[in-house]
């Protein structure tokens, strides 16, 4: 139906090609998963379906893109709109109108669809996606999962042959991600649409994928069934890591398959050992913290203590008050009530300069902190701002990410390197408490593992770390304790194994397969190695 033929893409002659003679066919009624490490060209591959590459990226695209036997390589995205539907990473950034109903109709208006047909298709799509009750809502008031479904609906009304989605679930909490995936499988099975999905969070999409494309990083594509490709993939969800380690054949991709295979392992493993890291003294103590916007309370009477030597994870739905709590704990956002104390000082009552020495915060968009032209300049500015000797921030950065080039522009760094740079800047004032707001966006599995090691290193050095995330696998790797927020209130808090076991939405895959408090594959590997020794 849609075919890429010997497709190559490079930004210019001097850089290595992002895609090299790639061949790929998408057929009706299949879900095709595109995976690969960060920066291997997933978005480029998707963009070549829609025409956004090279129209919006520049560069040279050669080969051919054929839809229903007709070459569309020379057509700009707008001329392919009725054939290829595209939903970007952040749906809210692509919304053109204000309400759900208008947004669904926008594409059809551009195509010149007759008004009566538009009316009918809008109603059909509202029903198909289960968003009929949202029709008059303002798009900005929708939750992340609802926004994503509206974005899907807004391209579906044009009746495209293929739907292309770039990381549709990466910004969503687990429940919202399930809503979106259920919608996608329905489109594949009931409507017979071809769906192409690029995603970092393979654990979410893998069970639904019919076929898979793995980008090898040198411009090549590996196409095959998910269980074949997962055997050697550099990106793999925990369930696959477990299957590879235990030599399960065929490799299980869904929790249900793995549970069936794991009965033997479950009985030999028994219960997971209790968490090893001991909690130090309380470094940040918060009581009854309340944060409000106008008449809406974002955080209601939250009390939390952060211990030295521990990583605490803050979980909860999108909009449950995680960010507000982090900013209030750091002291930059005013509290409506309650107290916060770091080493006896209230961070809200001291100067911004002093505050940085008490608690460092990495915001959700780390790039907001960066404004200079090179990494070196940023690091030097950080040294000056925190009254440290020159080279202090650089040495911090080298510990976090050893090979960040000093002459590079911060925007040219990979997501992981940029995060490390911002961490080094925040840490340059040497705060005892480190807070991070959703740091895993755009990181692949190796990137997340590296971040987990860094955060645990902070804890080992005697700091208290609080990280908000809805990536359950990341939390399982990194956290000693978990605090779950709902509607601005703490609904559950305690050791990671206990808290995530209580809620199916927050349970990592290994726990779902093995139970008994097992959270990560390395934990299982260590336990078995000890048993053998």
């Amino acid at each position, binding site marked *: 139906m849609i075919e890429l033929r010997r497709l190559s893409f490079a930004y210019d002659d001097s850089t290595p090609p992002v895609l090299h003679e790639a061949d790929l066919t998408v057929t009706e009624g299949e879900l095709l998963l595109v995976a690969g490490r960060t920066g291997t060209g997933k978005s480029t591959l998707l963009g070549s379906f*829609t*025409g*956004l590459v090279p129209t*919006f990226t520049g560069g040279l695209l050669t080969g051919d893109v054929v839809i229903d036997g007709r070459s569309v390589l020379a057509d*700009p*995205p*707008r*001329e392919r*709109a*009725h054939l290829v*539907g*595209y939903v*970007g*990473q*952040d749906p809210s*950034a*692509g919304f*053109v109108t*204000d309400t759900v*109903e208008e947004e669904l*109709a926008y*594409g059809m208006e*551009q*195509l*010149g*669809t*007759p*008004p009566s047909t*538009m009316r009918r298709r809008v109603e059909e799509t509202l029903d198909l996606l289960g968003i009929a009750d949202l029709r008059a809502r*303002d798009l900005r*008031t929708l939750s992340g999962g609802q926004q994503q479904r509206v974005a899907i609906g*807004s*391209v579906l009304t*044009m009746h495209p042959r293929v739907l292309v989605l770039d990381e549709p679930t990466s*910004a969503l909490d687990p429940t919202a991600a399930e809503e979106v995936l259920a919608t996608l499988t329905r489109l594949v099975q009931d409507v017979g649409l071809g769906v192409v999905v690029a995603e970092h969070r393979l654990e979410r999409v893998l069970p639904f994928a019919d076929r898979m494309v793995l980008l090898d990083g040198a411009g090549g594509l590996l196409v095959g069934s998910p269980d074949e490709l997962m055997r050697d993939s550099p990106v793999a969800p925990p369930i696959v890591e477990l299957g590879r380690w235990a030599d399960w054949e065929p490799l299980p991709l869904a929790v249900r398959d793995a549970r069936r295979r794991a009965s033997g392992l479950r009985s030999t493993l028994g219960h997971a050992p209790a968490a090893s890291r001991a909690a130090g003294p309380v470094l940040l103590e918060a009581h009854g913290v309340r944060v409000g916007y106008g008449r*809406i309370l*974002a955080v209601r009477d939250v009390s939390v203590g952060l211990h030295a030597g521990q990583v605490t994870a803050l979980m909860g739905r*999108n*909009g449950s*008050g*995680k960010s*507000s709590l982090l*900013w209030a704990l750091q002291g*930059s956002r005013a509290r409506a009530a309650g107290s916060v104390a770091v080493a006896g000082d209230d961070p809200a009552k001291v100067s*911004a*300069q002093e505050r*940085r020495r008490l608690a460092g915060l990495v*915001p*959700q*968009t780390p*790039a*907001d*902190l960066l*404004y200079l032209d090179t990494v070196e300049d940023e690091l030097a*500015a*950080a040294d*000056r*701002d925190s009254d440290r000797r020159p080279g202090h921030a650089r040495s911090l950065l080298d510990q976090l990410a050893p090979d960040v080039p000093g002459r590079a522009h911060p*925007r040219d760094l990979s*997501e992981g390197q940029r995060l490390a740079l911002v961490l080094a800047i925040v840490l340059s004032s040497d705060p005892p408490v480190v807070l991070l707001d959703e740091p895993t966006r755009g990181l692949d599995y190796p990137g997340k593992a590296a971040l987990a090691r860094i955060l645990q290193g902070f804890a080992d050095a005697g700091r208290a770390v609080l990280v908000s995330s809805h990536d359950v696998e990341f939390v399982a790797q990194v956290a000693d304790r978990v605090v779950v927020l709902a509607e601005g209130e703490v609904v559950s808090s305690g050791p990671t194994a206990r808290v995530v076991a209580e809620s199916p939405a927050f349970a990592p895959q290994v726990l779902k397969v093995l139970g008994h408090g097992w959270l990560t594959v390395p934990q299982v590997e260590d336990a078995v190695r000890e048993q053998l020794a």
Partner: protein
Amino acid sequence: MPRPSRDLHPGAWWLWALGLAAAATATTNPLLLVLLVAVTGFVVAMRRSDQPWSGSFRLYLLIGAVIVLVRVAFRAVLGGEATGQVLLDLPFVGLPGWASGVRLLGPITVDSVLAGFYDGLRLATIVICVGAANALANPKRLLKSMPPALYEIGTAVVVAVSVLPQLSDSLRRVRAARRLRGVPGGRIARLRGVVVPVMEDALERSMALAAGMDARGYGRSGELTRRQRRTTGVLMLTGLLGICVGTYGLLDGTAPRWLGPPLLAGGAALALLGFVSAGRRVQRTRYRPDRWAPPELLVALCGVAVAAGMYAVVGRDYTLVHPGIPGTPGVTLVSVLVVLVGVVPAFVAPPAPVTARAVAEEPPRRVAA
């Protein structure tokens, strides 16, 4: 009984605001201008919705104040009327011969300050009127009501206008983030620390929006032959050229008679043909378009009435609307009533629907690169 709320046709609000702005261009009487600003402010307060663009009115008021200040400062520094009572006797700054037309400093007189103030106030009032339209009318719905030929230009304008509230969003976020890394020393560095991330953010947002719109068929040319496209282009260009030359001929008294009206009319006709041809090219349809109902007509009429009334007053009493610089400006009952017609929309327009937007808990997200 409370009136049912709905959005007024954005075109009505714009006609009203442009009428008030036109009235403002006709006068330099500060009392009338302040009254005009008060009228727009009142209507905005009564009929704006709780959408993000509604908050931008305050920003326009601020811009207005800045315009007045800058205007006064320029008049004072660059000189102007040297007559009137001297407020501050500054020495002239000697300029080289090639700048002989320009006076720098010199005594600052009441007249020069007042002239700057009147002038600035007029410009500020016009800006504030446009700001009122911006706060009252949903810019995106205005786009839907554009005639097809203007659709693409309209979209560019509307996107540019709607960037403003987004900018203030990202400004807030970046300033919060700045405090996380200490305040850099110099003023320039501090400014840079905010401006660079905000501009990057704006650029990324607009790229994402442009990509999203393009991928959804915005700006499709449809089935149009090259020849049709060329005809449209030629019609439009010749038409515009005719209008330009015609206007020149009309305004310049020394130009030959035949150059004025005939060329203007011919040019306008050609441009109109081009418009129709371009409009046919855009194969767009509208989903549940806005309609003109009596309240819309009334609101638009109010704007037209204010403008027409003000021009009528100018014709009758020139010194009233353009008070001399030495002398106190006054008003007549008629001129006040004319301006007050502009307040009628605060009552005849239906109240804006309240969406009761939940405030987003998390700071606005940025598109991951």
